[in-house]
């Protein structure tokens, strides 16, 4: 089928990061993926992305501030008229760097916050960072940037949603993303410790919905669901390689940041081919476009043009087959796997926490 127009590019500039978050979406074998694209390769990639129709550029990681060429990359992205968003943990930001980014044309900053309480925030991040992040949020506002705060929700902080909303309003955020943990990569390793109970989840959702009405027009509040608690799958990424692409630090073009878990797919790299060629012709990006790949019960399901069969990575991780129906769907023969995981969350096990760091990455890579 003809390749659709992409609107969003997530550029993961590096997997290096000073934080060790329990839910990190970077691959568990990140330690082995160190050959980062050069400045010139990223510049070329941004230019090609803009020509393809990309509008939104997210500079992400790891921590993008660990790239010394970040100001140059921001300037080039703005030169391509991309809406340029910096996704950062904030711990390396200073007033001087913010001025520099503003001069380069950065449009927007998304800062991660782990919790409204210091102790849990630092337990989850695995490093001291709470005070610095609050200071940085204020510096971002002082520098005149629009600010989104992103909080990943899980058992440790989900009861603090009302406090998190109040804190975001106090910090002057224009947007608050309350994003429930999605269980891939490091989060999957920690699933039994991170998954909230259904009661905790329902209360958080209600709090977010009430606040959304209260802050309408001043602070937008997004709430990303725990799909395990539903019986219809999410329309993951709005469909495989449809409007969204993610480029890894080493240059591979993926339909989402988790897709490298799917065995048998070879993701082409911007080191070897133009982004335009990859977007249109990469066999991995074409693998799950449209609906020719679908099996039953998706194939004959009227929902298939709405949910696209759910998430391919989740299908692989929980059923062993990336072309299966997402087991979140009640029609999936594997739906019980998801139900059991959410039932287990009612009585969490005392498993140890697996921090995202080099040592754990090496250990987990051996396992796989």
């Amino acid at each position, binding site marked *: 089928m003809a390749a659709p*127009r992409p*609107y969003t590019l997530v550029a993961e500039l590096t997997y290096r990061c000073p934080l060790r978050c329990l839910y990190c979406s970077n691959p568990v074998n990140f330690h082995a993926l160190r050959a980062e694209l050069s400045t010139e390769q990223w510049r070329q990639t941004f230019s090609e992305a803009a020509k*393809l*129709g990309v*509008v939104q550029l997210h500079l992400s990681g790891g921590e993008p501030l660990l790239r010394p060429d970040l100001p140059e990359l921001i300037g080039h992205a703005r030169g391509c008229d991309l*809406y340029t968003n910096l996704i950062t943990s904030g711990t390396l930001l200073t007033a001087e760097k913010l001025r520099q980014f503003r001069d380069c044309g950065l*449009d927007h900053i998304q800062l991660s916050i782990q919790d409204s309480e210091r102790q849990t925030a630092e337990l989850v991040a695995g490093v001291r960072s709470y005070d610095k992040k609050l200071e940085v949020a204020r510096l971002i506002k002082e520098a005149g940037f629009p600010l*989104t705060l992103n909080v990943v929700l899980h058992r440790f902080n989900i009861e603090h949603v009302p406090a998190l909303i109040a804190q975001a309003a106090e910090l002057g955020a224009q947007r608050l993303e309350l994003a429930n943990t999605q269980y891939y990569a490091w989060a999957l390793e920690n699933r039994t410790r991170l998954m909230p109970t259904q009661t905790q989840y329902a209360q958080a959702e209600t709090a977010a919905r009430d606040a959304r009405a209260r802050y309408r027009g001043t602070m937008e509040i997004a709430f990303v669901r725990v799909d395990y608690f539903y019986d219809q799958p999410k329309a993951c990424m709005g469909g495989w390689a449809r409007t969204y692409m993610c480029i890894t630090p080493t240059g591979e073009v993926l339909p989402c940041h988790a897709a490298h878990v799917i065995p048998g797919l070879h993701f082409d790299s911007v080191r070897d081919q133009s982004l335009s060629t990859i977007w249109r012709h990469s066999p991995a990006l074409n693998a799950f476009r449209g609906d020719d790949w679908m099996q039953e019960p998706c194939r004959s399901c009227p929902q298939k043009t709405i949910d696209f069969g759910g998430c391919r990575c989740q299908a692989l991780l929980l059923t062993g087959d990336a072309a299966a129906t997402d087991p979140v769907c009640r029609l999936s023969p594997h739906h019980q796997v998801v139900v059991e995981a959410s039932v287990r969350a009612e009585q969490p096990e005392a498993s140890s926490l697996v921090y995202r760091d080099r040592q754990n990455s090496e250990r987990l890579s051996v396992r796989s």
Partner: protein
Amino acid sequence: MVDDPTTWTPHLSSKARLRWDEVGKQHMLVFPEAALMLNETAAAILKLCDGARTVEQITDTLAQQFIGADRQIIAEEVTALLTRLQTRGLLEA
């Protein structure tokens, strides 16, 4: 709701950027996580939202630009667009 059209001087909020989209050959309003495709009228309205003109002055200017158009219809279009954008936090007073 849109404030008093004789005194309100709207401008785009800092998170929103109006740009030309070369691929779709139309204007587009871009902001975090989304974009709105704009028709010619909507783009003309937003270009006039400079924080100095009142909503009434914006309507007057458009009525001069689109010769023959009914001023009342233009006023309604301006109000509808600004209300929609204000609800999404895309305008500042």
